[in-house]
């Protein structure tokens, strides 16, 4: 084919774009990936854990060759109030043996590796070129452009929008607008350098193994959001995420929230002596099921963050899975030589039946929880801390009395009915496990 015509153009070489390109290139689809960063991953941020599924389906035993940091053997949920922390930890060395617990990774290393897999399979990868517009013909997107003139245009039978939460492709094609401030969180993250031995002793792990800590509660001043500390080989990824609309209400700068999180008594000792190497910030889709735009429209398939497919903390997973499914559908479209929206809508159908949409549906209350944040991110955490502080203090008051005092507090401050309802309908939808 010429240099201006492909079967499919994929915009963005993040996990979604590379998964789509890899899937297609392996099945003989002539595919071009256009990435705006100088290299894949240059513009990308995630917390960072990569999971065994679905990457293993694309690259069997990927952990033997991918640039990964540590195997996660300790999964911890920590509920913070202002001073205290209540942790739920699951620790199992077997998770490491079988690669079941996921791996921490750094996007600046992982994304180039993944994009290279697509390139090796035959995809043409172009970096350092931001797509600025789509080419519309009779209401259908027939290509994209990176600048003025014919020389900066490329045509395709279908376009995959894998260009992230602000998706230029979807916006220029008129498929969706920019996300609302209550549909996106702003995530800020620092990479903090520490000697590997220090990380291993602080997180009680062997070489190459590590822990992931997810924090809720007083992390974000009672507003919906969370924090995390993940162990990399010789760094920690430390970050917070808060809904953009809430950040606007708080009138805080994102890094002020991060600084506060880092100085929390539960968190500070984990980071002590570390040197900040990098600072990153990015928007994260948090609108859940309700915010998903048309997934197939005008010859464009939306995948990953562009499709608002992102459930904390599995954004990368959702991205890869959706990219893979879109890739399969497009490969079949090529075989049947039918790239009509009707044929491509198979993507939506298959996604509905997959883990991706099942999870998004299961967590459909996610958005509501984030909006009714006071109870979840303020009231419950401080109640838990108050009760536990009392229960672990041995002061001659018998435990029976303490327990009934605790029950009284729950009854007065939230009410059993509300607690049960929250537990039943909402808490399950925000837990990352």
């Amino acid at each position, binding site marked *: 084919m010429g240099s201006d015509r492909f079967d499919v153009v994929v915009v963005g070489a993040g996990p979604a774009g590379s998964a789509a390109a890899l899937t297609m290139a392996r099945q003989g689809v002539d595919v071009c990936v256009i990435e705006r960063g100088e290299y894949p991953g240059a513009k990308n941020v995630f917390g960072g854990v990569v999971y065994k599924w679905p990457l293993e389906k694309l690259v069997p035993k990927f952990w033997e060759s991918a640039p990964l940091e540590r195997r996660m053997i300790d999964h911890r949920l920590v509920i913070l109030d202002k001073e205290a922390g209540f942790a739920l930890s699951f620790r199992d060395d077997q998770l490491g043996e079988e690669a079941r617990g996921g791996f921490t990774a750094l996007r*600046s290393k992982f994304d180039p590796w993944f994009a290279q897999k697509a390139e090796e399979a035959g995809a043409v990868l172009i970096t350092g070129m931001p797509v600025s517009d789509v080419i519309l013909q009779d209401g259908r997107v027939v290509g994209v452009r990176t600048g003025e003139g014919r020389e900066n245009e490329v045509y395709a039978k279908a376009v995959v929008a894998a260009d992230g939460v602000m998706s230029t492709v979807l916006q220029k094609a008129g498929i969706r607008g920019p996300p609302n401030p209550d549909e996106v969180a702003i995530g800020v993250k620092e990479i903090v350098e520490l000697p590997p031995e220090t990380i291993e002793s602080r997180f009680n792990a062997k070489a190459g193994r590590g822990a992931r800590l997810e924090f809720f509660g007083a992390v974000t001043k009672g507003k919906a959001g969370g924090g995390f500390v993940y162990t990399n080989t010789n760094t920690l990824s430390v970050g917070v995420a808060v809904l953009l609309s809430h950040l606007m209400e708080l009138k805080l700068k994102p890094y002020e929230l991060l600084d506060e999180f880092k100085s929390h008594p539960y968190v500070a000792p984990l980071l002590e002596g570390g040197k900040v190497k990098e600072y990153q910030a990015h928007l994260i889709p948090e609108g859940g099921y309700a915010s998903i735009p048309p997934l197939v429209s005008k010859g464009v398939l939306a995948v990953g963050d562009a499709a608002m497919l992102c459930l904390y903390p599995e954004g990368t997973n959702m991205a890869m899975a959706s990219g893979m499914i879109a890739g399969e559908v497009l490969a079949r479209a090529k075989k049947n030589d039918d790239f009509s929206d009707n044929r491509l809508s198979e993507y939506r159908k298959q996604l509905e039946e997959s883990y991706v949409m099942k999870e998004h549906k299961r967590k459909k209350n996610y958005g509501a929880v984030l909006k009714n944040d006071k109870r979840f991110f303020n009231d419950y955490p401080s109640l838990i801390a108050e009760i536990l502080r009392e229960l672990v203090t041995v002061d001659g008051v018998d435990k029976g009395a303490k327990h009934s005092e605790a029950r009284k507090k729950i009854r007065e401050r939230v009410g059993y009915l509300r607690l049960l309802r929250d537990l039943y309908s909402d808490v399950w939808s925000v837990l990352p496990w």
Partner: protein
Amino acid sequence: MGELNIVVPIKQVPDVSELRLDPVTHALIREGVPSVLNPYDRYAMEAAIRLKEQFGGRITAITMGPMQAKKALQECMALGADEAVILSDRAFAAADTWATAYTLSVYIKTIPYDFVFTGLKAIDGETGQVGPELAEFLGIPHITYVRKIEVDQTTRSVRVERQLENGYDVWEAPYPILMSIAREYGEPRLPTLQGYIEAKRKQVKVVTVADLQKMGGDPKYFGLKGSPTFIPKVHPPPARPPGTVWEGDPKEAVRKLVEALSEKGLV
């Protein structure tokens, strides 16, 4: 009128806009700094492309360096280079300008060329020596700081303008010739999307020490052992003295600032 063969030696350098200094040692932090095509070399590529557009011909971009430097060559191909060559071998490592120029010359001697265009210098080493040294090894004349080129194919000569600090010289010379291209030559173009796509479909030719030996290169002039330059010490720039901060009431702080400035006779 024949077509012109143009060779453009280029270098991949650290992206200085991303360079940081270690706050304690003041040494350059090279780790994690992306590499780019030396900005000065873009002018050399621009001159080559314009000549090719005018007369037709063939542009060969060439570099010596580690395999990562292929990326800079790919950019040259995206701009319009027809061929790209990388001289890459451990034996070439740590070469000074003399050894670099020698190594490049061994390969360039084996291909036809009318012009060799270089950048003024590389932004990392800042010596500006490789171009003129390369001309010496090739046994051809060279002109630096060229801002305008007129080619006369009947006499196989050029008439060029050479940029000076306040004005310019006009020179005439026969070709083959090496010229380093000044910024005043004109704004270098950016690669296009289709240029990048076409570049991806071309191969970069890799040349090793064994290949160069077959071409008559003497290995004792390659790399570190072929480099007469010896750098006894590198001094980081001295730390800047800390500034003064006046805190507290803005009016009072401003008064102190004005006082300090007038003491130094600055206001």
